[in-house]
């Protein structure tokens, strides 16, 4: 069994003449939190979109290996199959919940594929077969469990669009977890959260890694979150990897500091340290 859950090998993505990602290689370890950081426009979200099937990479390979050894070539899988078969779940930089559905319904939609099988492709469900009812109850129980874990149990029956911003962020993570993923990809989960909320988010992510054993790949700008929870950090700038290593190691790398704040290293060091 490989210790690497995700291996990205010389991944390139071009949009016309623009090279968004250039020959990027990195790996994410199993049951670890890997952070992908870099200044705005470094190509982080493009990498995410390639991994989760929203873009077809121009070249390169993305390998995902499950606990049982099953391997998937993500660059060749079709969009929805990446979630359905390879078990990669993601959240979005600008939250994408189903605003007109309740928090509970959002989590039920996430269990679509399991429920479709249980409902006998709808026919068993239409006649109300007992096996379907049990499966539905199990799905409700799983949703309830996740609502409890993200602290939204008492808002289960409220429309997702009505929840406060921080709650929506956590609900989106809960929804991704309801697909029972092997790899959870989070695109800036702490964006727009205050200090207390991002603290709670860090705890949530650590518990997802610790208790569920789910590997996490994270894009984040909030350095306090990255430094606190990441096991491994990959730094990108202009589509290429400029550094990689533990949070401590990356924070002291002059190339990283230069990328973040231009050439003025002294100022950059101050900022990076204030974040830790």
């Amino acid at each position, binding site marked *: 069994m490989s210790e690497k859950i995700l291996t990205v090998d010389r991944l390139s993505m071009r949009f016309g003449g623009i090279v968004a990602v250039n020959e990027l290689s990195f790996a994410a370890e199993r049951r670890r939190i890997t952070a992908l950081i870099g200044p705005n426009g470094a190509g982080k979200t493009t990498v995410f979109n390639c991994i989760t099937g929203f873009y077809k990479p121009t070249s390169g390979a993305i390998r995902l290996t499950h606990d049982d050894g099953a391997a998937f070539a993500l660059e060749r899988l079709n969009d929805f199959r990446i*979630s*359905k078969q390879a078990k990669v779940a993601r959240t*979005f930089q600008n939250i994408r919940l189903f605003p007109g559905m309740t928090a509970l319904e959002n989590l039920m939609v996430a269990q679509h594929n399991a429920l479709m099988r249980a409902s006998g492709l709808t026919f068993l469900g239409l006649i109300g077969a007992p096996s379907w009812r049990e499966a539905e109850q199990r799905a409700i129980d799983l949703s309830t469990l996740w609502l409890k874990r993200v602290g939204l149990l008492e808002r*289960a*029956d409220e429309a997702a669009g009505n929840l406060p911003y921080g709650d929506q962020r956590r609900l989106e993570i809960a929804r991704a977890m309801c697909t029972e993923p092997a790899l959870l990809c989070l695109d800036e989960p702490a964006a727009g959260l205050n200090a207390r909320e991002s603290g709670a988010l860090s705890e949530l992510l650590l518990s997802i890694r610790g208790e569920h054993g789910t590997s996490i790949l994270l894009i984040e700008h909030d350095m306090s979150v990255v430094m606190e929870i990441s096991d491994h950090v990959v730094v990108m700038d202009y589509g290429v990897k400029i550094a990689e290593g533990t949070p401590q190691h990356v924070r002291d790398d002059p190339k990283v500091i230069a990328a973040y704040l231009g050439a003025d290293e002294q100022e950059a060091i101050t900022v990076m340290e204030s974040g830790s």
Partner: protein
Amino acid sequence: MSAPLPAPSHTARTSGAAFILKKAAISALVALLLFSLMIGVRTEAGPEGNLIYWTRFGELASIVAIVFGGSIIIELLRQWIGPVGAERLVPAWLRNLMDFAGRWLAPAMLLFAFLVPVIFYDQRYILDLSILVLTYVMLGWGLNVVVGLAGLLDLGYVAFYAVGAYSYALLAQSGIPYPTFIAEAPFISVDFLQLGNWAFWVLLPVSGLLAALWGVLLGFPVLRLRGDYLAIVTLAFGEIIRLVLINWQSLTGGPNGVTGIPRPTFFGIPLTPADDGLAAKLGIEFSPTHRIVFLFYIILALALLTNWVTIRLRRLPIGRAWEALREDEVACRALGINITATKLTAFATGAMFGGFAGAFFATRQGFISPESFTFQESALVLAIVVLGGMGSQLGVVLAAVAMIGGFELFRGLDQYRMLVFGFAMVLLMIWRPRGLIGHRAPTVFLEKNQTISSDLVKEGHG
């Protein structure tokens, strides 16, 4: 050191006479432009076919004067009453009554629907009208799956109605084809299974399935389109089906349509005055009303079946996926939902109900022609869904009753009927832009089943 504050302006609250006059003058000018040709000049063909015209400036002047005066009166009224919230306009007791009515409306309407043939047994006109209303309720419920739940704008729904109607009509006349083997050359030949008195009951599901098949066939190429593009292609599909029906004379009879479509039987027993008819078997006197009542209950049962299936489907994963698709397609993809399959099932389900309704239409009329399946029908059904509130089952019923029944109500106004109708729709869209019943009921809940405001629910973008 501060500059003197400008004098507080009163024009914001109560506009002066100048403002009112200006507004009235603009309205009058618009009226003048609009009506100068429509009313100011009257043209007619002369005795030798030449054009004769005369002017009617008197009428034009009076219309413009009415608009001018009316605009002043409306503006004065507005300033006198001021902005009014719903709380002041609708007293509390009336709102309580409406809440109460809202809870009992659906069961009351259902009970009433069952009793219609009993109450109006002697009024053939009302029975016919109720059958028509129920047909549109069923079509509305069918289209609601596509437009209201899945958020796919379908302007060609009538195509599936037509497929259902023609499937029934043609198969009932020819019988169901099946291959047989013969001794000579091609060794295979087509025979037809005659269905006799069971034609309707056997072909009803067949028509629905054929319509669903066409829904899938249409769906495959067009479902990668979104929003306006999807609407245009479905519109074209509706027209293509109609044009094929007109031009494929050898099969469909072209513009002459199909005549002599078999009537439904009471599960094999015909409703005729003959000796083997239902009336003779029951020992009661034959009356043509029996068949009307029977047709009424068939369409009521079909409509209720549509409703029941839709309500069940909403609570199943497929229905939730439809609604999720309407809310956010990208999020659905990220959750591993097969978008194409989900859209296709929505299309096929909607089309199937359209096909059932079509088969019923054919058997009720006994005659169908392509003229019954014009774009106007699609537009009418879509209007019922949108006016009712997209995704709301009760809303569709209310809208169908209002649109079809209301249309009949204003028959006395003959040519102004469309005007009243359009005016009512504009008013409704101002007061209830999300339809009569705009809120959404959750499909599953833990503690309390609270409805979701229409502001949050998306319409879908194809």
